[in-house]
């Protein structure tokens, strides 16, 4: 088992956001974290990265408890986060964004450039001058450069043109084929369900349903995911 989230509760100051979330991710597995807006998906991800440490419960990553680790140490254990809103370092070039994050492993500059050829074309450009889709590719590339054991994608295709979305999904499928473990949050179920092995559904800060992605019936979609 790679990630074990054990009944965590997390607070924003005084207000409680998570009331008991638990799920697991095995090596090589792609897990979709689903739920309506405001149900705790992003908070769960911030808790895993220890950007918002859980108040109770615990998280094990590769057997290590993360509760006492600073966020940079969690990242070094192998949690690669692609944050919501494609956040690059705006005043660094594409190349510098990637190099700054590099940690030893199989993912190198060449491999990232092969996955996203557009990044290679724009390697000298300031990342703030990239299009939204290119910034997203850069955010994913930057996370891969850390050679993560688990890649976390938070709304990686949100607000992108359909053609670019296809590029991102193609990359995600390719990463899955290579055996990378991925935790993915996304609203496009038609793309998400085929690529995910399992799904975890959150409602009001609780994990309320888990199962293989084939079992996400229309009824479940209606109940937990419909608007």
């Amino acid at each position, binding site marked *: 088992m790679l990630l074990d989230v054990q009944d965590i509760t997390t607070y924003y100051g005084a207000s409680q956001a998570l009331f008991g979330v638990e799920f697991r991710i095995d090596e090589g597995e792609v897990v979709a974290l689903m739920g309506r807006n405001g149900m705790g998906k992003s908070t769960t991800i911030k808790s895993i*990265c220890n*950007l918002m440490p859980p108040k109770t419960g615990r998280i094990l990553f590769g057997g290590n408890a993360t509760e006492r680790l*600073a*966020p*940079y*140490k969690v*990242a*070094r254990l192998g949690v*690669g*986060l692609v*944050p919501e809103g494609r*956040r690059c*370092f*705006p*005043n*660094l*070039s594409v190349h*510098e*964004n990637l*190099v*700054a*994050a*590099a*940690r030893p492993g199989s993912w190198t500059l060449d491999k990232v450039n092969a996955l996203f050829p557009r990044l290679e074309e724009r390697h000298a450009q*300031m990342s703030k001058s990239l299009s939204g889709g290119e910034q997203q590719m850069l955010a994913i590339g*930057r*996370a891969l*450069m*850390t050679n993560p054991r688990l890649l976390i994608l938070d709304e990686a295709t949100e607000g992108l043109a359909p053609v670019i979305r296809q590029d991102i999904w193609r990359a995600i499928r390719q990463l899955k084929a290579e055996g990378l473990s991925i935790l993915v949050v996304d609203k496009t179920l038609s793309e998400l369900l085929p690529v995910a092995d399992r799904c975890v559904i959150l409602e009001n800060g609780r994990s309320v349903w888990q199962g293989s992605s084939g079992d996400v019936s229309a009824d479940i979609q209606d109940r937990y995911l419909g608007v």
Partner: protein
Amino acid sequence: MLTRENTVNLVLALLLLVAPLAANALGQPFYVTLATRIAILALAALGLNLALGLGGLVSFGHAAFFGIGGYAAGILSSHALSYEPMMFGLSGTVQMPIIWIVAAIAAGLVALAIGAISLRTSGVYFIMITLAFAQMVYYFAISWPAYGGEDGLSILVRNQFPGLNTMKPLSFFLVCYVVLLASIGLFALIRASRFGAALQAARQNETRVATVGIHPYRIRLTGFVISAMVTALAGALYADLNRFVSPSMLSWHMSGELIVLIILGGTGRLFGPLAGAALYVAFEFALGGLTERWQFFLGLILLGVVLFARGGLLGLLAGKAKHG
């Protein structure tokens, strides 16, 4: 690649070399000394630019490192000339390269201590705590009679560089010029390295940096120490230029002056410190000849730069910064 900024940089570098050569040929050594002062102040500001421009660390205490460099030169040469051994029976030296190494190491160790504490804070607290540490060093120097205390310490004969007569203004200028260019090269290397990218990324967003596994504190501390070492090297040269070192090199005015140089020239720019130092010394010389209150006018100019030309002189000449 000959971009507009590179062209401006090249022109600046050549001007700084050609002007003193011409002045020397015309028998005007005063201008050679003026150019030397520009080169040394540029080097000091270049050191600070590493912390401030790349790392976003507004150190208001870099005079401490500048002064430590100066005192390293003064103390080592006074012991060498008096044949009195220093602590642990070590003897002094008048060889510049050795003095530079001692200056850089001494300042680096002090910066490690100051940085280890100061970098736990940020923003205005960082500014104040670096100022406080620098003032501690300042008052320590004032109350240390062995090396002149408040009166400072004279360097009777300028320290030596192998193969050169450093008492000749032009030779000493060339030493400073080469050290400046080498340090600019070092700055460019650091900025392009993984470490430099991480230092700049930490300035832009600490959380994002942590999520890619970089520890901002350690990166900043390393940047702060290198920054202090470069500024100390400038301090050693400055003491040799004036053949005198006093606590005024350690005063907070000096720290402020270094920040002013960077803002005038262009924060984070490779040649910003040189442009700023040239402008500053030119003002000091031109305005200082007209009025004793030249710093009032410098203040107005600084105000203009901050309000209307935030990229400094390089921003005006070479366009907006690629790195900001």
